[in-house]
C-alpha cells in the first residue's frame, strides 16, 4: 500500500478547515485511507540517521497517509484534497478538458526501433502552469509514487517532464546503440555516453534499481527534440537541458513504456492532478503521437465513460434500501457524477479519467457503500443452510495428534521450507534421491539478534543463517533441529509432528504433491528403540490395524537406510504397502544435527489409513 506524505498545515489550508489528529484519522478511516503516522522531516532523519544529522531539518508536521494500491488519483496532496472535498460535498468534481493549442500542436514521433525494447509513448502539455515550491515538490513526488506503484518501478512505464520552452518540437522517440547516445544528464555538467552513464549509475542508490530494465539490450530508448537535444533516456534519466524548475511555465510530459494502458493512465493522472495550477484550470493541451505504423493518436485521452447501474442492484449487493436519487448522490460524492435516468431505477454513472480503478459495476457498488458508510450498513446473517464436513485427512490428523500427545509425546511445529543440507547431506543422502522440489529464488536469511550482555554491559551480536532452498521431504530434520534448540531441557525428549511433506509427482497438475506424514523421535541416554516401536504399536492400535502380515495388518522388517545405525532400522508395512521406517539414528546424523545422545525415530505416511 503506497504511503503519501503531506504537510499537515498545507493539507488543512487546502481543505479549508483544521482537524484534530483524531478527527482526521476518523475521516481517513471512513474514506478508506489510513493515517499511518504523524511525524516531521526532523523526526524521520533523527530516527534513521541520529539526532545530529537531524539538526536544522524542518519540523513542519507531516501526515503519512496510506492510500489503497489502486487509487492513483490519491497519490498527491492535490488528489487527496480533491477526493476528500468532493466526499464532504464542499466542492464538485472538476471536469477535465483536453484542448488543441491555437498554434502548432506538439508532436512525438515513435520510430520502429523502439518496438523491441519499449514500444509505447504518450505525451501532453501543461500550458501556463504556476508552480510554487510546495507544488513543484508535490509534482516531483507524484511522479516518484507513480513510478514505484503502477509503473512497477519504471519497468512498465517511465515518466519524463520537461520545460517545453527550452525545446523545439517535433520530438522523436527512438532506440539507439548505447555508444551512440551522448548527452548531459540531469544534474550533471558534462556529457556522457549511455554506456558511461550505466556505469556511473551502478553506484547511484536511486537509479541503480532501474538499470536492469535496459542494461543488456542492444538498443536503448531515447527521446530527441528537433535540434537533437536529448529529453530523456527512459526509463533511466532525463536530460539536464530541459530540466523543469519552480519557474517553468510550460511542461511537456512524456510517458514511455511496455504497457500502453498503464502509460495512458499515468499520463491522465499527472495532467488531471496538476492542470489545477494551469491558467485555464483543469485544461490540458493535447499532444500528438505518431506510431511507427503512421497512425496518429492524440493524448491525453482524458476519456469519460458512462456506465449504467440499476439502483436495486446496488441496494441488493450492499444490503441497504436507498432511493435511486440518494444512491446517485452517494456516488457523486466519490467523484463519480451520477444521475437517475430512464425508468427511475437506472443510474447513469460517469467514470472520470482519474478513476481508472473503476472497471466493473462492482467497483461502483463499492463506492456507493463507502459513501453510505460501511459502519452504517445493517449486519444480517445469510440464510445459507449447509452441513459442515471436515476434510478427512485433517480429521484423522486431529484425532491422531490428541492421542499421540496422550501417549506422552510433545507436538512440534517446524518449517516446511529448509536447506538442501537438512533433507539430504545431513541424513547421508544425495539430494537427487529425495525427489524434492527446488525453489528458484531461494532465500538466505540473516537473523541479527542483538543480545545485551549484562556482565560486561556491552552489545554482542549473533548472526545465524537460514537457507530456504527446498520443501522438506521428511519431518525428521525439523524435529532433530527442535531437539538441538532444546538441549537444556530434561531428558528424555519425546517429540512428534503430523504435517505435510512435498514430493515431485509428474501425475499431478503442478508436478508435485503433499503427503501427510507422522514423525516421532525419542532422545535420551539410551536409544529407546523399544519406546519408538511401542509408539508405532500404539498408533496402529489407534488406527485399528492389527499386528501381523495378514491382509490389513502391519509388520516391521529389517531394512536399512542412510540415516540409521546399521542393523537398527526396519521398514514398516501396513495394509499391504510400505508406509515408512523406524530405527536408531546413525551417529553421523546425530552429530550433524549437533546432538550428543542416542536417538530413535519413526516416520510414516498416514494417508493409507484414510
Amino acid at each position, binding site marked *: 500500500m503506497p504511503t503519501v506524505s503531506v504537510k499537515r498545515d498545507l493539507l488543512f489550508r487546502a481543505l479549508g478547515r483544521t482537524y484534530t489528529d483524531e478527527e482526521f484519522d476518523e475521516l481517513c478511516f471512513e474514506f478508506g485511507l489510513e493515517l499511518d503516522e504523524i511525524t516531521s522531516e526532523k523526526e524521520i532523519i533523527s530516527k534513521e540517521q541520529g539526532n545530529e544529522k537531524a539538526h536544522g531539518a524542518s519540523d513542519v508536521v507531516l501526515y503519512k497517509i496510506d492510500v489503497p494500491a489502486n487509487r492513483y488519483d490519491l497519490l498527491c496532496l492535490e488528489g487527496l484534497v480533491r477526493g476528500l472535498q468532493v466526499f464532504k460535498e464542499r466542492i464538485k468534481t472538476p471536469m477535465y478538458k483536453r484542448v488543441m493549442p491555437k498554434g502548432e500542436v506538439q508532436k512525438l514521433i515513435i520510430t520502429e526501433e523502439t518496438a523491441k525494447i519499449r514500444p509505447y509513448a504518450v505525451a501532453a502539455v501543461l500550458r501556463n502552469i504556476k508552480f510554487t515550491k510546495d507544488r513543484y515538490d508535490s509534482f516531483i513526488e507524484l511522479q516518484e509514487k507513480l513510478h514505484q506503484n503502477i509503473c512497477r518501478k519504471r519497468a512498465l512505464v517511465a515518466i519524463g517532464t520537461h520545460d517545453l520552452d527550452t525545446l523545439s518540437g517535433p520530438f522523436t522517440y527512438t532506440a539507439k546503440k548505447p555508444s551512440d547516445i551522448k548527452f548531459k544528464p540531469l544534474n550533471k555538467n558534462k556529457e556522457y555516453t549511455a554506456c558511461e552513464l550505466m556505469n556511473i549509475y551502478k553506484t547511484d542508490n536511486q537509479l541503480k534499481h532501474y538499470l536492469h530494465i535496459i542494461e543488456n539490450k542492444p538498443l536503448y530508448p531515447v527521446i530527441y527534440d528537433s535540434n537533437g537535444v536529448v529529453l530523456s533516456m527512459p526509463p533511466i534519466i532525463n536530460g539536464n537541458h530541459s530540466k523543469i524548475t519552480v519557474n517553468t511555465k510550460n511542461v511537456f510530459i512524456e510517458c514511455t513504456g511496455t504497457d500502453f494502458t498503464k502509460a495512458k493512465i499515468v499520463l491522465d493522472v499527472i495532467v488531471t492532478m496538476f492542470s489545477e495550477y494551469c491558467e485555464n484550470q483543469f485544461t490540458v493541451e493535447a499532444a500528438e503521437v505518431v506510431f511507427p505504423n503512421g497512425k496518429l493518436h492524440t493524448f491525453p485521452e482524458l476519456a469519460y465513460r458512462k456506465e449504467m447501474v440499476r439502483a436495486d442492484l446496488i441496494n441488493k449487493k450492499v444490503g441497504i434500501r436507498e432511493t435511486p436519487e440518494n444512491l446517485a448522490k452517494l456516488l457523486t460524492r466519490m467523484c463519480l457524477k451520477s444521475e437517475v435516468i430512464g425508468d427511475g431505477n437506472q443510474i447513469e454513472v460517469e467514470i472520470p479519467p482519474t478513476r481508472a480503478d473503476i472497471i466493473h459495476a462492482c467497483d461502483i457498488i463499492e463506492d456507493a457503500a463507502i459513501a453510505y458508510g460501511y459502519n452504517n450498513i445493517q449486519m444480517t446473517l445469510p440464510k445459507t443452510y449447509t452441513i459442515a464436513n471436515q476434510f478427512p485427512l485433517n480429521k484423522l490428523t486431529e484425532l491422531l495428534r490428541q492421542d499421540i500427545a496422550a501417549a506422552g509425546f510433545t507436538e512440534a511445529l517446524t518449517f516446511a521450507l529448509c536447506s538442501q543440507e537438512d533433507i539430504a547431506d545431513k541424513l547421508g543422502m544425495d539430494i537427487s534421491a529425495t525427489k524434492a522440489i527446488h*525453489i528458484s529464488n531461494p532465500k538466505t536469511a540473516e537473523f541479527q539478534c542483538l543480545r545485551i550482555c549484562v556482565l560486561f554491559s556491552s552489545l554482542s551480536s549473533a548472526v545465524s543463517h537460514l537457507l530456504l532452498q527446498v520443501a522438506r521431504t521428511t519431518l525428521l530434520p525439523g524435529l532433530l533441529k527442535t531437539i538441538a534448540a532444546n538441549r537444556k531441557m530434561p531428558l528424555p525428549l519425546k517429540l512428534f509432528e503430523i504435517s505435510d511433506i512435498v514430493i515431485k509427482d509428474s501425475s499431478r497438475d503442478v508436478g508435485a504433491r503433499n503427503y501427510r506424514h507422522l514423525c516421532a523421535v525419542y532422545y535420551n541416554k539410551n536409544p529407546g528403540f523399544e519406546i519408538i516401536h511401542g509408539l508405532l504399536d500404539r498408533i496402529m492400535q489407534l488406527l485399528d490395524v492389527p499386528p501381523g502380515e495378514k491382509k490389513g495388518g502391519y509388520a516391521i522388517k529389517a531394512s536399512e537406510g542412510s540415516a540409521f545405525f546399521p542393523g537398527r532400522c526396519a521398514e514398516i508395512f501396513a495394509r499391504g504397502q510400505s508406509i515408512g521406517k523406524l530405527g536408531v539414528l546413525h551417529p553421523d546424523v546425530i552429530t550433524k544435527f549437533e546432538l550428543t545422545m542416542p536417538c530413535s525415530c519413526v516416520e510414516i505416511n498416514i494417508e493409507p489409513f484414510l
Partner: protein
Amino acid sequence: MADGPVAEVLLRRLETADGGLDSAELATELGVEHQTVVGAVKSLQALGEIIETELRSSKRWELTAEGEEIAQEGSHEARVFRSIPPEGLPQSELMRLPSGKVGFSKAMSNKWIRVDKSAADGPRVFRVVDSVEDEVQRRLQLVRGGQAEKLGEKERSELRKRKLLTEVTLKTYWVSKGSAFSTSISKQETELSPEMISSGSWRDRPFKPYNFSAHGVLPDSGHLHPLLKVRSQFRQIFLEMGFTEMPTDNYIESSFWNFDALFQPQQHPARDQHDTFFLRDPAQAQQLPMDYVHRVKRTHSQGGYGSQGYKYNWKLDEARKNLLRTHTTAASARALYRLAQKKPFTPAKYFSIDRVFRNETLDATHLAEFHQIEGVVADHGLTLGHLMGVLREFFTKLGITQLRFKPAYNPYTEPSMEVFSYHQGLKKWVEVGNSGIFRPEMLLPMGLPENVSVIAWGLSLERPTMIKYGINNIRELVGHKVNLQMVYDSPLCRLDAERGPPSTQEAA
C-alpha cells in the same frame, strides 16, 4: 526421627529454658555435631506448632587443618629455626625436613637464619638470633581459643592468605516454645497404608500434616503445540458455524490458481520474485483446465462479464509458473471452480487453515511461512451486510465483540473491507482481518451463476495466537527454535474466555 534422643532432650531443655535456646550451644553442651541438633529441630518443625524457630546466622573464624597443626606445633619457620643446632645444618638436610621449604624462606625473610654458601660440604644454615617469638602460632592459638576478634583485620587476612584461617558462616536456630508445645510427642504417621486400613490402626494414629504450600509433582505427559491448539479452536468455530473444510494439502500451486484465477494481473507486484517463491523444479504446471484458462485470459486482457479488463497481453507461460502458494485463496479458487461445475448450483460455506509462503523480510513478526485462516460463503444474493453479519458472529466466538470496518483494496474482492477490533490493552483499533466479496471477473469465468455472490474473509493464525499467549517473537512460537518449556506450560486455548493477565495484552 521426631522422637529421637536429641529431639527429646531439646524439648526437655526447652521446657525449663528461659525464652529459648540456641542450637549450636545445645550441640556443644551435648557434645554432638551441630547438624544432629538441626535435624532434630527440623523434625520437630514438621510436627506443627510444637516449637517456633528463628534462623540466625553468625560468622566465625576457624583454623584450617594446617592452621590447627601450626597452633599445636608452631609455625614452619619456627620449626626450621628450632631444628638448627648451634653448629649449623647443611641446607640440603634442612630442606628434607617437613617444614623445610616453606619454613626456610620465611625464616630467611624474618632474618632468623643465614646461609653460608662457602662451607666445605655445601651451603650450611646457621641461626642468626638466639631465640624467636612465634607470632603466627600465638595468633592461631588466639583464634582457636575463640578470641579471633583480638587480631587486627590485616593479621587475619594475612593468615587467611596463608590458608591457615577460614571464615565460616554458621547457621543456627533459636528455638522457642510453639503454641502447641509439649514434651511428650508420639511418632506421627506420614501416609495412610493398606495395612492401617485393614487393621483399622489409622483410628489411633496421629498423622503428619501435609505441607499444602509445596508444589505437586507434574504428571509425565505429552503436550500439544499452542499454535495448533489455536488451530483446533478455529476449526471448531467454523464447524460450529456449518462451514466445510477445503482440501489445502498442496503447498505447490501454479501461478494460474494462485493469481490468474483470482483476477490478479500478471504485472501485479505480488507476482514479483521479491514477494513469491517460484520453483526451479518442477518449474511449470503441465495441466491446466484450458477452457477455463481461456475465459480467464480473455477477462484479463479484454474484459467481459461486464468488466473493462486490465487490457494487457496475458501470457500462458506466466500462468504456468509454479510457486509456493502465497495464500490459501488459491485453494478457495479451486474449491469454487469445483462448486461451479456442479449443476444446479448449491450454496456452500467453506473454510481452510493452512500454511502459506512469502518471500518476505524476516523479523520478529514475519516468517517466510505462516498459517492463513479463510472463510468463504457462496449463495444467491449475498450482501455486504451479510459479510459483516457473518464476521460479527465469527469474531464473537473469538471473544472479539467491538468491530468496525474500513474500506480497503484487494485485487480479487470488491467491495473489500478490513476488519478492526478495539484492543483494550493498546487502547486503539487494530486490524484483525481482511474481507470482501469476490469480484465477478473471478467468479463468472469459473461458471458460477451471475446472481451468486461469494463473500470471504481471512486472517493469520499466528497473530491471534501471539496475542493469546503473550508471545512477542514469532520464532518462539513457530519453527525449531521454539522453547519446549513454553509448549509444556501453555494453557488450554479458550478463545472466548476471559483474556489473560495484563502482560498478555502488551504482545500485540
